[in-house]
């Protein structure tokens, strides 16, 4: 068949035409498979969210939270898996909106981009856009002009969807004014408390009742099993002081890594962009190339005109006003073709045309900051710490298995392992109760389970060496053990009686209150010592939520009205509602507007969630749970 193709040009051409037609339909990308690369935290509709992107979003969110709490944030908040999950959900949602935006070709014009940048307060000085501020702010974020604009463009595109779906909900005016008037309604109430204490003394607890209560709750009166331990800890940290680092090793490491120790080379460049999309038609590319050639010719004729031409002709909105200046940047900040060109030019030299995804660039390098490299003596301290840590963790990896074998093979003592690795046998002073998850200061359910295992308690064997994370393993043995003990009725009689008495008194108080309420509702008179009047507003809770609810939920058509709530463990509160002051809301009341906005925002958030969940059905979302859990420093 191959021969046939070679000899029959017409058929071959027809087949080639077919192949190129499929490219026209599906694009080349669909032929390149991009299967779940390592370091992906999630994929949304087939597009990856990288671990780098995720960690950066985590850092940004941490910064935002710190900024809004003035630095007073419990670090545990950021360790919480829920925090990381929330950051990821947010990234996924943004990605869903972006996919929707690009599927529907939503776009952002250069003009809109320029206006948005000019309107960002962080880039302004005295209320005016300042290019110096702008460049400095970007550098502070480790971004350059092009990458920032690209990012902003993406955000503005999905903002177009977000505002329509999530910020344009409306709520009925009548509903808003009902909520507001309910919030402002004032009820004057008197209260009588029925306290358990009143009923304590008159209660008789029969021995049978106490016994029955004890039987029903027998487990809660038991003392759990408990142990004391001796244990060994082997960790990379404890090995750090036991490894040595030679001068030769330090020098070798210095030679190998010195380029990374200092700051890398940075270049200051200007450019002129003739924009043409990466997927533009050949005619468009040719036109852009021709235009760029003309500009290049002008610059070659008179190099001093570069800035002026950048100002008038460059399509890069961020840099053109500044004569094309991009400031200093290192490797990795710019697109690859741009970087290759910029880092191969000499100072003052003008590049030929450089094609990137944005279009054609003409680049001139204005300044070069050479890479700085610290001397061996300057770097020594840092190198030694690094090497020591590396050696310790290598030693730890080698030792861990041997350690595990030793404690397993000689199960009746920890001493062989202690001697072998020069470790100290430590012991716990306090009892460790069964069910605790922290053992000897280590939070480890596996260790807690091991020390209460049959072999640890009955056979008095060492536990296995247990990995408790963070390059640390622990082996323990039980030195004392007390089994779980049920306490006899006589032992706990006083405790049982007092608890039962308290419980019955609370029940009696609640019953008395409820009976009283029933009588009052029927219209019977009651001799009660009502307290002072209290003015309550639903919007300003002064009582527990269930009491507020019951006071405001009682029908107010005939006053006084009665209501009450039982307070768990604390008896009963009976209320007499004497007066209800309803508030009529004027249409012009400014509070209506505030309430409308808040209410509409909440409803908009619901709409947006509904929209996002529809997008989740369209673009498959896959979360890589393992990558999500890995902390950047763990």
């Amino acid at each position, binding site marked *: 068949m191959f*021969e046939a193709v070679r000899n029959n040009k017409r058929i071959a051409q027809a087949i080639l035409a077919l192949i190129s037609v499929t490219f026209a339909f599906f694009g080349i990308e669909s032929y390149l498979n991009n299967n779940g690369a390592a370091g992906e935290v999630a994929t949304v509709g087939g597009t990856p969210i990288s671990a780098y992107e995720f960690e950066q979003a985590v850092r940004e969110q941490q910064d935002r939270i710190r900024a809004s709490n003035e630095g007073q944030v419990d670090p545990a908040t950021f360790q919480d898996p829920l925090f990381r999950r929330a950051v990821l959900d947010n990234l996924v949602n943004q990605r869903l909106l972006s996919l929707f935006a690009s599927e529907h070709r939503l776009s952002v014009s250069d003009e809109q981009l320029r206006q948005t940048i000019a309107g960002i307060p962080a880039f302004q000085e005295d209320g005016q856009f300042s290019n110096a501020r702008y460049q400095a702010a970007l550098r502070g974020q480790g971004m350059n002009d092009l990458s920032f604009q690209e990012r902003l463009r993406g955000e503005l595109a999905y903002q177009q969807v977000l505002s329509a779906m999530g910020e344009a909900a409306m709520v009925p005016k009548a509903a808003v004014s009902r909520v507001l008037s309910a919030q402002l309604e004032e009820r004057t109430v008197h209260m009588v408390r029925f306290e358990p204490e009143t009923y304590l003394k008159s209660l008789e607890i029969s021995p049978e009742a106490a016994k029955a209560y004890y039987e029903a709750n027998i487990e809660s009166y038991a003392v759990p099993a408990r142990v004391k331990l001796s244990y060994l800890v082997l960790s990379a940290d404890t090995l750090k002081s036991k490894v040595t680092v030679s001068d030769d090793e330090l020098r070798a490491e210095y030679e190998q890594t010195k380029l990374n120790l200092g700051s890398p080379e940075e270049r200051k460049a200007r450019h002129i962009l003739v924009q043409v999309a990466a997927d533009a038609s050949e005619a468009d590319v040719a036109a852009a190339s021709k235009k760029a050639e003309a500009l290049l010719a002008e610059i070659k004729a008179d190099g001093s005109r570069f800035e002026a031409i950048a100002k008038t002709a460059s399509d890069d909105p961020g840099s053109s006003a500044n004569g094309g200046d991009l400031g200093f940047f290192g490797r990795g900040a710019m697109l690859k073709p741009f970087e290759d060109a910029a880092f191969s030019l000499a100072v003052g030299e003008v590049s030929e045309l450089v094609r990137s995804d944005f279009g054609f660039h003409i680049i001139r390098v204005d300044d070069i900051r050479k890479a700085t490299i610290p001397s061996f003596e300057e770097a020594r301290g840092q190198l030694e710490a690094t090497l020591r840590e590396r050696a310790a963790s290598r030693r730890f990896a080698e030792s861990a298995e041997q350690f595990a074998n030793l404690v397993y093979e000689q199960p009746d003592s920890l001493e062989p392992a202690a001697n072998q690795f020069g470790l100290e046998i430590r012991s716990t002073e306090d009892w460790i109760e069964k069910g605790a998850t922290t053992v000897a200061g280590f939070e480890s359910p596996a260790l807690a389970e091991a020390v209460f295992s049959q072999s640890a308690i009955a056979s008095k064997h060492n536990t296995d060496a247990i990995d408790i994370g963070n390059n640390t393993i622990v082996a323990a043995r039980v030195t004392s053990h007390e089994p779980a003990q049920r306490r006899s009725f006589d032992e706990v009689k006083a405790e049982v009686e007092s608890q039962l008495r308290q419980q019955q008194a609370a029940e009696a108080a609640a019953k008395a209150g409820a009976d009283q309420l029933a009588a009052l509702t029927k219209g019977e008179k009651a001799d009660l010592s009502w307290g002072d009047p209290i003015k309550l507003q639903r919007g300003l809770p002064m009582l527990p939520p269930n009491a507020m609810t019951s006071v405001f939920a009682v029908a107010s058509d005939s006053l006084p009205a009665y209501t009450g709530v039982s307070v768990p463990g604390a008896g009963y509160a009976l209320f007499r509602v004497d007066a209800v002051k309803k508030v009529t809301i004027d249409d012009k009341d400014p509070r209506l507007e505030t309430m409308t906005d808040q209410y509409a925002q909440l409803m908009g958030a619901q709409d947006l969630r509904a929209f996002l969940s529809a997008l989740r059905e369209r673009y498959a979302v896959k979360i890589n749970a393992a990558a999500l859990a890995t902390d950047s420093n763990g």
Partner: protein
Amino acid sequence: MAVYDLEEQEQLAELKAWWAQYGWMVTTVAVIAAVASVSWQGWQWYQRKQTAEAAALYSVVQKAVVDNDAAAARQAAGQILENFSGTAYAPLAALMSAKVQQAAGDTGNAALPLEWVTKNASEPVMRDIARLRLAAVRLDAGDTAAALALLSDEPPPALKVRHHDLRGDALVADGKIDDARKAYQAALDAADAVIVPGDRSAEIIRIKLEALMGGAR
């Protein structure tokens, strides 16, 4: 010519026969594919051009919403609906414009774009959301029956809270307090079924429900 050996001659003959029989088909398919490809790309170009123009108008709508300028929003959104109704900007602009019109108290002009979305949006969820927003506008206009009619269908799960909450509002307006209570309770049940951190919608619905219990109207 003479270099072909017998086997090659044979192959060539077979191939010629095959071409004589199927050649027209191959050619037709290739031509159809080429025409389809060219029209597809033309269509793509046309779509890109349309959305770019709609995008410019949409940024006018966005700005008008920020400035609370109902007339400007209505005009720009109107142009999108008239000239670029096939783009994704059409439903987005309609939803945005409706919000400003309602805020300006113009229920008539708030309802029109929402009606358009309920009928024409290609995304079912956008139609559902527009229906809810339209119900709120109808209530403001005093048309309780129309609002209730919009809320008669079972909502998709993610919009249950919104749906029952609005049904409660409509039933209060209709004087059916017992039914309104049930609707608010259904909204609260739906909110409790899916806990969203930081979402306080349930508090508002609970206040409306409790206010009804207290006999307030």
